[in-house]
C-alpha cells in the first residue's frame, strides 16, 4: 500500500475504480512534507472497528477540519494522533519521521496539544493551575529543587499572559474553572494548548456545547492560533463552522478518510453528501 502513489484527495487504500462521482479539485495547501501524517490507522474496540485503515495529513499553517457522521471515528482518529489511545495498526509521522505515542505525554513532549471534546479541565482548580496542570513550574533554588515548591506567582503571571494573548478577558487567574461560562472554559482549554503547542493544536468539537456567540469567539481563537503559525486540526460536525474557518476538510466515514475537499471551491451540501454516504453510497455499500 505504501508503494502506491499517495493521492491526498482520496484514500489511497481504496480501489480507484470505486472513486466517488464527484472528484474534488486538487488542493494547493497539500504540498511539501505534512507536519503530521497517519497511514492506515486501525483501532478496534471489541466488535467495533472505530478506525478502519484511516489516512491523514496536516500541512503547515493550515486549519484542517475533520468532519464525519457520529461514530465515523473522528474522536478516535485524533486520540490516536494525540497519544490518548494507541492504534492497533498503522503509522504516524511527525515532520516525516515515524513516531509512536504511548501516552498523551509523548505527544505533548513533541509539541502536539489537544483540546478534548469533554474539555479536559479540573473544575475545582483555578485557571492558572489548569493551564499548568502536568507541567507546573517549580521555584528557583532549593525551594524548588529540594522542597519541590511550585512557583505560584510565576504561573499566575504567565497564565494571565497566555489568556491575554488570545484576548480572553478574564481578570483573575485564581478563579476556579467551574465558575466560568462554557465559552470561557473553552478559552482556558484553547489557551493551554496554544501556550504549549510547538507543532500542532488539535481541537475536538470545541463549539459543540456552546451558543452562537460563544462559538464565534472560539472560531476566532482558532484563527488566531493558526495566524500565530500553528496548524490546527478542528473536529466538528457543524458544517457552517467548518466552512467558515477551515482551509481544507478531511471527510471521515466508517473509520476511514474518504475525501479531502477545499471549502472555497466545494459546496457544503456536497461535503455533507459524501459524509453521509449519499454521494458515494454504492461504493460504501459494496465495500
Amino acid at each position, binding site marked *: 500500500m505504501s508503494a502506491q502513489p499517495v493521492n491526498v484527495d482520496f484514500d489511497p487504500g481504496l480501489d480507484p475504480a470505486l472513486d466517488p462521482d464527484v472528484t474534488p479539485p486538487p488542493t494547493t495547501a497539500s504540498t511539501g512534507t505534512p507536519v503530521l501524517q497517519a497511514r492506515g490507522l486501525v483501532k478496534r474496540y471489541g466488535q467495533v472497528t472505530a478506525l478502519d485503515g484511516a489516512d491523514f495529513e496536516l500541512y503547515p499553517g493550515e486549519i484542517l477540519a475533520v468532519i464525519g457522521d457520529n461514530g465515523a471515528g473522528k474522536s478516535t482518529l485524533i486520540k490516536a494522533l494525540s497519544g490518548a489511545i494507541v492504534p492497533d495498526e498503522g503509522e504516524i509521522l511527525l515532520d516525516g519521521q515515524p513516531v509512536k505515542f504511548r501516552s*498523551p505525554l509523548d505527544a505533548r513532549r513533541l509539541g502536539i496539544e489537544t483540546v478534548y471534546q469533554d474539555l479536559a479541565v479540573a473544575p475545582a*482548580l483555578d485557571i492558572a493551575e489548569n493551564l499548568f*496542570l502536568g507541567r507546573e513550574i517549580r521555584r528557583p533554588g532549593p525551594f524548588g529543587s529540594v522542597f519541590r515548591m511550585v512557583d505560584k506567582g510565576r504561573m499566575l503571571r504567565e497564565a494571565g499572559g497566555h489568556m491575554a494573548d488570545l*484576548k480572553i478577558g478574564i481578570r483573575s487567574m485564581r478563579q476556579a474553572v467551574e*465558575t466560568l461560562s462554557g465559552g470561557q472554559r473553552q478559552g482556558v482549554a484553547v489557551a493551554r494548548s496554544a501556550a504549549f503547542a510547538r507543532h500542532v493544536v488539535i481541537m475536538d468539537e470545541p463549539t459543540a456545547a456552546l451558543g452562537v456567540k460563544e462559538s464565534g*469567539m472560539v472560531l476566532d481563537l482558532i484563527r488566531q492560533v493558526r495566524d500565530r503559525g500553528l496548524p490546527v486540526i478542528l473536529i466538528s460536525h457543524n458544517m457552517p463552522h467548518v466552512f467558515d474557518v477551515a482551509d481544507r476538510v478531511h471527510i471521515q466515514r466508517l473509520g476511514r478518510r474518504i475525501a479531502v475537499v477545499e471549502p472555497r471551491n466545494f459546496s457544503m451540501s456536497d461535503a455533507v453528501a459524501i459524509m453521509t454516504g449519499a454521494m458515494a453510497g454504492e461504493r460504501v455499500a459494496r465495500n
Partner: protein
Amino acid sequence: MTHALSENAPGAAGGAFDRSRVFNAQLLTSLGPLIALVLACAYFASQSDRFFTGSNISLIIQQSMVVAILAIGQTLIILTAGIDLSIGAVMALGTIVMTKLAVQNGVNPYLAILLGVLTCAGFGLANGLLITRLRLPPFIVTLGTLNIAYALTHIYSEEQTITKLPAAQTWLRTSFTIGETRVPYSAVLMFILYLMTWYVLRQTASGRHIYAIGNNPEAARLTGINVRRMLVYVYTIAGVFYGIAGMVIIARTQVGNPQEGQTDNLDSITAVVLGGTSLFGGRGGVMGTLIGALLVGIFRNGLQLTGVASIYQRLITGILVILAVSVDQLARRRQG
C-alpha cells in the same frame, strides 16, 4: 471581528450570580469547620471552668490524636475520590506486628516499629494496586483488606493483648510542658505530619495532581499525569500514616491490643467530612480534617465535663456529618 470571551457571554449576569453563590458555598465548606470549632469551644468554656485548662486541652488532643493521624491518610484518599475502610484494621495489625516482634521475638524495638509501619504500607500498596490494576472500586477493595487485616491481626496475636512493651516503643508518650500544658511528643509528631501534608498538597505539583485526579481523572490522565501511579502512591503513603498512628497508639496505651481501631475507619471518614473535604473528591484539605478530628474530640470531652451522657456526642456528630455533607453537595450543585 474579535471577541473577548468575557464580554457579553450568554448568561453573563446569571454567571456572576452563580459565581457569588459558589464562592459562598466554598467559603462555608472551608470556614464552616473552623466556625463550628470556635463555637463549640466557646460554649463548653462557658459551661465548664475546666474546659479551657491546659491539662484538658492536652487531654483532648491526646484523645483525638490517633484518629487525626489516620485521617491524614483518609483525606489523601478521599481527595482522589477514593475511600479506605481498612484503615483501623490495618493499623491494628501494624501495632501487633510492632509489639509482638519486640516483646515475644526479641526483635530490636525500633526495627519492630519499622516492620509494623512497613506492614501497613504493604496493605496500602495492595489496596492501591488492586484499585488501579484490576480497576476495582476502592470501597470493595478496602472492605476486603479490612477483613483480611482484621483476621490476620487476630490470628497472629492469638487474641492476646501484648503488654510490657520496651521503653523504646512508648517514648512518644513522654512530654514536655508549655506553661502548665503537658505536650507529649506524639502530639508534636501529629502536628508535623499535618504541616508536611498540607505543604505537599498546597505547594507541590504532586499535591495539585491529587486534586486534579479527584476532580476529573480522565482530564488528569490526558494532561500527562500518571494517574495510576499517583493513586498507588497515595494508598501506600496512607498506609505509612496508619503505621505511624499505630506507633502513637501503642505509646499511648502501652499495649498492643488486637481489638484496637475497629471504629477508626468511620471515625476517620467523619473527621474528613466534618473538615469540609468532599467525599466526591478533588475538594477540601488536610487542615480541615485536623479541625474535624478535634471537633469530635471536643464534643466528647465537653459533654463529659458538662455531665451530659456521652451518647449525645454521637447524636451531635451525626447531625454535623449530615450538615457538612449537605453544604458540600450544595457547593457542588452550584458549579457550572
